[in-house]
C-alpha cells in the first residue's frame, strides 16, 4: 500500500512537472529573499548553494530523469534521421529487406514446423509403420492382421487406430468429382483426441460389417452441403450408397490430410496378411517415450515375423512422431530457406552497421563535443543505440508490411505443396520474432559505432578540422574491412547454394525425356474403367484431329507406376530380392507407345493381336535389358512377374524419364493390357495433329457422351504436366537465387561503400603519392588490390562455410553433389567480378584526384 501510493505520487508528479518547477523556483526565491533581508544578498547566495544544481537534484529525486533523457534521445534521434533522408531510407530499406524476407519465411516455418498440431497433446501422437529391411523401406503400410496383433500385444500406447484412404463420387454441377476421405477403425477419433463439433463419432457397434452405413463429415464438406445443423442424423448419398451423418468435425480438422469425410472401417476377418494397405496412428501412454514404444514394437514385430515367416518376411516396426511424419521432407527445404534468410539478414545488418560507422565518423566532432561538455560515455552510446534500434524498428515495420503481402501470395499459390499451408499467416508469434530480430539487429549493428565513438580520447577529434583525413586510424578501417569480408563470405555461401540448385534444376530439366510430349493430351481416369479402356480409345481415335490414342498405368513422365524388388523372374536365373532389383510394372495398350512417341530399340511394340488368347508377351525397357541381359539379346527370352505365367520378350523400348529417382531410369516391364491385371489408375494419352489444348473440349465431350458418370481426374496437355512437375525445384531455385541476388547486390554495395570511404579518407595520401610520381595505373592497382584482398578473405571464409553447410541441401539436389566444383567456382567467379566492379568506381575516382588540390586541402 505504501509502495502503491508512492508510485501514485511519482506518476502525479510526471503530469504536473511544469507546476512543480514553478513551485520549487518560487519557494527557493522566497527563501533567498528572506535570507537576503537578514544577511544581505551575497551571503544569502553563498549560504544557499548552487540553486540550479539543487533544483536539478530536487527533480531527480522523483526518479524520472532517466526516462526523460531517453525521450530526449528519441526526439533527437528522430530529428537527426529525418534530417538525413538519404541515409535513413537506405538503412531502413536494407533492414526492411532483411527483416521482411525473414518474416515471410519465418511465418511459413512457424505455420508448418513450429506450431503444434491441432490435436490435444500432439507430441504424444505417433504413426506406426512397418519396415521391410530387405528392400530398405522404413515406412510401409500395414496389414489389418498385423495391426490387430500390434494393438493387442503392445503396452506403450493408450490407443491405436488403423485407417485407409477412401474416396466417394459426388456430382458438382455436371461433373462427377472424387471427394477424398478415410475409413477409420473405432479408436481413430479417441486416439487423436478430437471431439466432433456436432453430433458424435463412431461407436463400437458401428464397426461391424453388417452395421448400417454411417459417416462423419468435415466442417468444409458440411459447409459445401449447405451447412445446416439439422444435417446430423439425416442421410446423404455418396456414389450409390446412402450414409447416415453422425456428426460434423470442427473446422480445420482434416486428418489424414485433405479428408472430407470418415467412414467406419470394419475389421478384416480374413487371415490374409498380404494386404498391406493400412496406416496406423497411435497415442502414446503417459510417460512412455517414442523410443521405448519403438523398442516394444520391434519386439512384437520380431515375434510376428517368426509366427508368419512368409508374409512378415523381414518386417519390423517404426514409430514416427506425427509432427515429424507430417512435416517430414519440408523440414530440410524450410531450414535451407531459414539459412538463406539468416544470411540476407546478417548481410543487411553488416551493411547498415557500415553505414552507421561512416555516419558516426562524420559526426564524431559532434559527439566529441558532447563528451567534453560532460556527457557520460554511456549516455552517448545509448543515444547511438537508440538511433540504430529506431532504424531497425522502422525497417521491421516496412518489412512486416511487405511480408504480410508476400505470405498471402505464397499461401494462395502454394508453389511447393507444403503440409499445413492453410495455417500459415503472419501472427503474433511471428511479430514477436520480428520485433526480437529487429531489436537484436538494431543493437548488434549499433554497438560497433556506439562503442567506438564513445571511446575516451577521441576528444582529439575536436582539434582536427572538419575535413580532417582519417588515414591515421588504421584500426577503424580494419573494422570496416572485416565487416565487408563477412558480407562477402555470406554472399558467397548463398551464391553457391543458388548455384547448386540451379545446376540441379538444369540437369533435371535436361534429362532426356525418351518420349515426345508436344502435341499430346493426357487424361487421368479412375481404375474402374480399365476393362473398357479399349472401347474408349476406339471412340477417341475416331475424333477428327486425333493421330493416336493409348493408355497405360502411368504417364511416361511420372514414376507413379508400381514397382517391386523381388517380383521379376527371368527364366534360367535364380530368384532375386532387394532394392537393386526394383523393377517398374506397367500395363499398356498397343497404341500407348506411339501416342507417347517412345522409341523402339529392338523388336516390336504390342499390336491388337496380342489378345487374351494369344501367346503371352512383354516389352521391356532399355534399362532392364542392360541390367538383366547384359551383352545378350533379350528378344525371345522368358520372364514372369510375381509367379504368374511366363511371357516372351518381344521388344525393347527406349527409357523414359519418369521411371526412377536421381535421373537413372528404372528398369521396367510393359505388359499388354489384354493379358495382364491393370494395376493403378488409367492414364490416357491422345496424340493430336492440331494443338492439343484446342482438342481438350472435344475429347471431354466425347468421353462424357461415352460415360456420363465417369470421373475425369485430370485432363491437360502433357507439356503442362511436365512444367508443373518441375514447379517445386524451380521454386526452390528461384527463391534461393533471389536471396543470393539480394546478397550479391547488398554486399557489393557494402564493399563499394568501404572502398569509397577508404578512398575519401586517403585523398591526401593518394595526392602525395601522385605528387611523388605514382602513375594513375599504380593508384588504380592499389585500390583494386585493397578490394581484392577483402574479396579473397571473404571468399576463403565463404567457401569454407559453404563446404561445411551445403550438405543440408543434399535432399533438394538432383544429380549434383553438395561439393560440386562448378557451382563453387562459378559462384566465386561471379562474386569476384561483382566486387571488382564495385571497387572499380571508387578506384577510378582515386585516379582522378588532383594532387595539387589534395595536398592544398589541409
Amino acid at each position, binding site marked *: 500500500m*505504501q509502495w502503491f*501510493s*508512492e508510485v501514485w*505520487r*511519482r506518476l502525479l508528479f510526471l503530469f504536473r512537472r511544469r507546476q512543480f518547477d514553478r*513551485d*520549487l523556483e*518560487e*519557494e*527557493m526565491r*522566497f*527563501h533567498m*529573499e*528572506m*535570507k537576503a533581508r537578514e544577511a544581505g544578498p551575497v551571503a544569502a547566495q553563498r*549560504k*544557499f*548553494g*548552487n*540553486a540550479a544544481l*539543487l*533544483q536539478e*537534484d*530536487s*527533480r*531527480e*529525486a*522523483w*526518479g524520472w530523469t532517466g526516462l526523460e533523457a531517453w525521450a530526449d534521445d528519441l526526439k533527437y534521434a528522430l530529428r537527426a534521421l529525418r534530417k538525413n533522408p538519404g541515409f535513413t531510407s537506405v538503412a531502413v530499406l536494407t533492414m526492411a529487406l532483411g527483416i521482411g524476407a525473414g518474416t515471410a519465411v519465418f511465418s511459413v516455418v512457424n505455420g508448418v514446423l513450429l506450431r503444434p498440431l491441432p490435436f490435444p497433446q500432439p507430441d504424444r501422437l505417433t504413426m506406426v509403420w512397418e519396415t521391410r529391411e530387405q528392400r530398405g523401406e522404413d515406412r510401409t503400410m500395414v496389414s489389418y492382421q498385423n495391426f490387430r496383433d500390434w494393438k493387442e500385444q503392445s503396452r506403450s500406447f493408450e490407443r491405436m487406430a488403423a485407417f485407409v484412404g477412401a474416396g466417394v463420387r459426388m456430382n458438382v454441377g455436371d461433373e462427377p468429382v472424387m471427394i477424398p476421405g478415410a475409413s477409420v477403425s473405432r479408436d481413430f477419433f479417441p486416439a487423436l483426441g478430437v471431439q466432433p463439433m456436432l453430433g458424435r463419432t463412431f461407436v463400437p457397434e458401428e464397426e461391424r460389417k453388417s452395421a448400417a452405413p454411417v459417416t462423419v463429415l468435415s466442417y468444409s464438406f458440411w459447409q459445401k452441403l449447405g451447412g445446416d445443423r439439422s444435417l446430423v442424423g439425416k442421410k446423404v448419398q455418396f456414389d450409390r450408397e446412402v450414409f447416415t451423418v453422425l456428426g460434423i468435425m470442427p473446422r480445420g480438422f482434416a486428418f489424414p490430410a485433405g479428408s472430407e469425410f470418415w467412414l467406419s472401417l470394419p475389421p478384416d476377418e480374413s487371415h490374409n496378411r498380404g494386404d498391406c494397405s493400412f496406416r496406423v496412428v497411435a497415442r502414446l501412454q503417459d510417460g512412455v517415450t517414442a523410443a521405448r514404444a519403438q523398442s516394444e514394437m520391434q519386439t512384437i514385430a520380431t515375434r510376428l515375423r517368426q509366427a508368419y515367416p512368409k508374409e512378415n518376411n523381414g518386417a519390423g516396426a517404426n514409430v514416427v512422431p506425427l509432427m515429424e511424419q507430417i512435416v517430414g521432407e519440408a523440414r530440410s527445404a524450410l531450414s535451407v530457406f531459414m539459412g538463406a534468410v539468416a544470411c540476407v539478414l546478417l548481410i543487411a545488418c553488416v551493411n547498415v552497421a557500415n553505414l552507421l560507422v561512416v555516419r558516426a565518423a562524420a559526426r564524431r566532432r559532434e559527439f566529441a563535443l558532447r563528451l567534453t561538455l560532460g556527457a557520460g560515455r554511456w549516455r552517448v552510446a545509448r543515444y547511438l543505440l537508440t538511433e540504430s534500434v529506431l532504424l531497425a524498428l522502422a525497417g521491421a515495420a516496412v518489412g512486416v508490411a511487405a511480408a504480410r503481402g508476400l505470405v498471402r501470395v505464397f499461401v494462395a499459390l502454394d508453389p511447393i505443396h507444403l503440409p499445413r499451408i492453410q495455417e500459415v499467416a503472419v501472427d503474433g508469434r511471428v511479430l514477436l520474432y520480428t520485433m526480437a530480430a529487429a531489436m537484436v539487429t538494431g543493437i548488434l549493428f549499433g554497438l560497433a559505432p556506439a562503442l567506438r565513438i564513445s571511446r575516451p580520447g577521441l576528444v582529439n577529434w575536436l582539434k582536427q578540422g572538419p575535413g580532417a583525413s582519417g588515414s591515421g586510424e588504421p584500426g577503424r578501417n580494419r573494422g570496416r574491412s572485416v565487416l565487408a569480408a563477412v558480407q562477402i563470405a555470406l554472399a558467397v555461401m548463398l551464391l553457391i547454394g543458388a548455384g547448386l540448385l540451379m545446376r540441379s534444376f538444369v540437369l533435371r530439366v535436361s534429362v532426356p525425356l525418351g518420349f515426345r510430349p508436344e502435341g499430346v493430351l493426357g487424361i487421368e481416369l479412375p481404375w474402374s474403367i480399365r476393362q473398357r479402356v479399349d472401347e474408349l480409345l476406339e471412340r477417341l481415335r475416331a475424333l477428327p484431329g486425333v493421330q493416336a490414342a493409348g493408355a497405360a498405368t502411368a504417364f511416361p513422365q511420372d514414376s507413379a507406376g508400381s514397382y517391386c524388388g523381388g517380383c521379376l523372374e527371368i527364366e534360367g536365373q535364380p530368384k532375386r530380392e532387394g532394392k537393386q532389383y526394383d523393377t517398374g510394372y506397367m500395363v499398356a495398350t498397343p497404341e500407348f507407345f506411339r501416342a507417347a512417341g517412345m522409341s523402339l530399340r529392338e523388336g516390336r511394340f504390342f499390336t491388337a493381336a496380342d489378345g487374351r488368347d494369344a501367346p503371352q508377351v512383354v516389352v521391356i525397357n532399355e534399362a532392364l535389358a542392360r541390367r538383366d541381359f547384359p551383352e545378350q539379346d533379350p528378344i525371345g527370352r522368358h520372364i514372369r512377374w510375381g509367379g504368374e505365367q511366363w511371357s516372351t520378350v518381344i521388344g525393347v523400348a527406349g527409357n523414359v524419364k519418369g521411371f526412377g529417382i536421381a535421373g537413372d531410369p528404372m528398369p521396367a516391364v510393359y505388359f499388354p493390357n489384354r493379358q495382364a491385371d491393370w494395376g493403378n489408375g488409367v492414364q490416357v494419352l491422345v496424340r493430336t495433329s492440331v494443338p492439343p489444348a484446342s482438342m481438350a473440349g472435344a475429347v471431354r465431350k466425347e468421353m462424357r457422351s461415352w460415360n456420363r458418370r465417369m470421373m475425369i481426374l485430370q485432363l491437360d496437355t502433357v507439356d503442362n504436366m511436365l512444367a508443373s512437375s518441375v514447379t517445386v525445384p524451380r521454386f526452390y531455385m528461384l527463391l534461393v537465387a533471389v536471396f543470393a541476388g539480394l546478397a550479391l547486390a547488398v554486399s557489393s554495395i557494402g564493399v563499394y561503400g568501404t572502398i569509397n570511404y577508404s578512398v575519401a579518407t586517403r585523398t591526401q595520401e593518394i595526392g602525395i603519392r601522385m605528387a611523388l610520381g605514382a602513375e594513375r595505373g599504380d593508384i588504380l592497382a592499389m585500390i583494386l588490390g585493397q578490394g581484392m584482398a577483402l574479396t579473397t578473405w571473404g571468399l576463403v571464409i565463404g567457401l569454407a562455410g559453404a563446404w561445411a553447410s551445403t550438405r543440408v541441401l543434399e535432399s533438394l539436389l538432383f544429380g549434383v553433389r553438395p561439393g560440386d566444383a562448378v557451382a563453387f567456382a562459378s559462384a566465386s567467379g561471379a562474386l569476384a567480378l561483382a566486387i571488382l566492379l564495385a571497387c572499380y568506381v571508387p578506384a577510378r575516382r582515386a585516379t582522378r584526384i588532383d594532387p595539387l588540390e589534395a595536398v592544398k586541402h589541409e
Partner: protein
Amino acid sequence: MLILKSLARLGPMHGYGIAQHIQQMSEILQVEEGSLYPALQRMLIKGWVTAEWGQSENNRRARYYRLTASGKKQLSVEISEFEKVMQAITRVIQPA
C-alpha cells in the same frame, strides 16, 4: 531527521523557517541551506510530509510543509535508531 523533528516540534513550516530553526537549534551544524529542498522532495515522495501553499508571516506566498502520520512514525524510528547509535558511540568513547 532534523527536518522531521523541526516540523514535529513547531508544526507546519515553510522551507526557510525549517532552515532557520535547524540553524538556531544546532548552532554548530553548518549546512548548505539549499540542500534542504531536494531532501524535502524525497520526503514528499515517501509521504512523510505534505506541502501546501499558504500565507507567510510577512504576507508572502510560501509553501508550508506538514508532518503526516507516517512521517511521525518515521521520526520515532529514526530517533530510536539514532539513539542506539549514540549509545554505542558513547560506550566506546567513555573512559572505562
